[in-house]
């Protein structure tokens, strides 16, 4: 019984986590290019985008993998970086051609 209660509580707390996440890799050139754009949008929206590096943090990589259903679709079949995941809307942007406009719209949805 308890196990069921625990896991549903965990599920609820995950669902209440409404972060806007930028997944990036230190060795990825496209991430480096997009980084200042994400920072700009984040500043404009009051510092609301959480940046998580995924090639040097297993914890961040595990979190990114947990969103694989959405990310695989957004990235065309693999767990691509740079990518942005909105925990509230469960919508993602992925890849080297993400524009500032798209990030603003994704963040404000």
């Amino acid at each position, binding site marked *: 019984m308890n196990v069921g209660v625990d896991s549903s509580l965990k599920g609820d707390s995950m669902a209440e986590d409404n972060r806007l996440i930028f997944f990036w890799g230190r060795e990825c*050139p496209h991430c480096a290019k997009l980084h200042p754009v994400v920072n700009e949008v984040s500043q404009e929206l009051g510092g609301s985008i959480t940046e998580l590096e995924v*090639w*040097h943090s297993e914890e961040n990589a595990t979190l990114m*993998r947990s969103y694989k259903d959405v990310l695989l679709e957004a990235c065309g079949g*693999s767990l691509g970086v740079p990518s942005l995941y909105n925990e509230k809307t469960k919508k993602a942007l992925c*890849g080297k051609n993400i524009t500032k406009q798209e990030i603003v719209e994704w963040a404000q949805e």
Partner: protein
Amino acid sequence: MTKEEMVKKKLWRCNVCNDIHYGIRGPVICPTCGARNAFALIDYPEAMKVIIDRGDRLDEVDKLLDLWEKFTHDKPFKLNPDEDFVRQLAKGELANEANHGLKYCPCRITTGDFEDDLDLICPCNFFIQPVYKESGECWCGLFVKR
């Protein structure tokens, strides 16, 4: 290649020139010496001894650039002409090799399943990527259609 097929892969040795092949069956014609029907099964520890480590390593940016350039010969794609970008990508792959053991694509992350992640070794089989079909570039943009 499916996981079921991967499991069927074995090591084979050419009994004429000691070529080693890793696959479901040995090649009919040895790609190195041309001998026919010369491949016999060999086990992993013995094969590792047959492959003599002469210290060659693909561990520098220039070596990767050279390997990629050669890989594009007679292919419908070429290396991205932006050399700075290509060098940055090479550095990223070398860092991935140092930190994670293989030259994984820096523009994606591993799934955590070692066999699945073999698909992320660069150069990957990018022909199957939707992005290559649509835009003519591999996911990272390292290789672009001619």
